[in-house]
């Protein structure tokens, strides 16, 4: 495993940066390093069947509408579009076990474990910083806990998952991760931010 180098390994250096606020940094940033990121796609007439497999295997209820996520100890399943899902999991074997259950007639799996960089952004100014780039209403009533959106920040496409009122998980294309990080942390300077050590 020593051969793995994550996208922000050289960039996201732990420490406190930016404006110094009496109440502490306005946000915390953490590089997420899930073992698995897997896209699953059903066919129009197998959506139910695929969801049944996912529900059973991941021990969660698949959200009915796109733009919602369900979380279980097995991972986070985000519904990206009708019949299209993104599974983020710390279980590195989950792709193989799902492959064994999902025949191509039911759906297809695309491994994206290396294709995205993950960043968790949390704190009282998390939404303020995101709004500098993301054109989505992040009010808690409009973008509720568990909501998922695909959009962009500083011309970099991203998937956004609201974990709680002040915590968001972001997934961006790996190649843009450093540029994205630079833009995100620049936007965070006025609030002050702390970079946490990845698990």
């Amino acid at each position, binding site marked *: 495993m020593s051969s793995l180098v994550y996208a922000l390994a050289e960039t996201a250096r732990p420490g406190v940066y930016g404006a110094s606020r009496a109440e502490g940094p306005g946000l915390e940033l953490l590089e997420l390093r899930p073992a698995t990121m897997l896209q699953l796609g059903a066919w129009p007439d197998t959506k139910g069947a695929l969801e049944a497999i996912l529900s059973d295997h991941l021990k969660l209820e698949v959200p009915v509408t796109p733009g919602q996520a369900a979380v279980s100890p097995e991972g986070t399943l985000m519904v990206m579009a009708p019949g299209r899902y993104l599974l983020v999991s710390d279980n590195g074997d989950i792709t193989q076990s799902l492959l064994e259950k999902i025949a191509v007639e039911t759906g297809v799996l695309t491994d994206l474990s290396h294709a995205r960089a993950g960043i968790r952004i949390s704190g009282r100014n998390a939404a303020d910083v995101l709004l500098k780039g993301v054109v989505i209403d992040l009010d808690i009533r409009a973008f509720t806990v568990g909501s998922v959106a695909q959009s962009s920040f500083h011309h970099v*496409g991203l998937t956004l998952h609201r974990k709680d009122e002040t915590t968001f998980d972001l997934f961006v294309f790996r190649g843009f991760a450093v540029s994205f990080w630079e833009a995100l942390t620049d936007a965070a300077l006025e609030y002050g931010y702390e970079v946490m050590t990845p698990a």
Partner: protein
Amino acid sequence: MRIPCPICGERDVGEFTYGGDATVARPAMDETDPAVWNRFVYDRENPRGAHLEFWQHTGGCRAWIKLRRNVLTHQVGASELVGPWSKPSEKDAQTKRQEPVE
């Protein structure tokens, strides 16, 4: 300009890519008459008023949609998903501007 995505809801135009005139239908694969293909590739109406257009939500869910847009008033009407998932989706009810674009 804001465009309603049937999957993601209303988003800024910057997230979308224009994909051409949606009133044009592609000829069958085995069509051989060059005149038919010529019409399909090159002939476009440019009516003053309502257009039916293809857009792709490239900066979001990547869905291809059909959008009614009035090029005179800039009014945007409802959009619909194109493709295998084109049956009305759940978010449809939430998209705001549903008034017809005349």
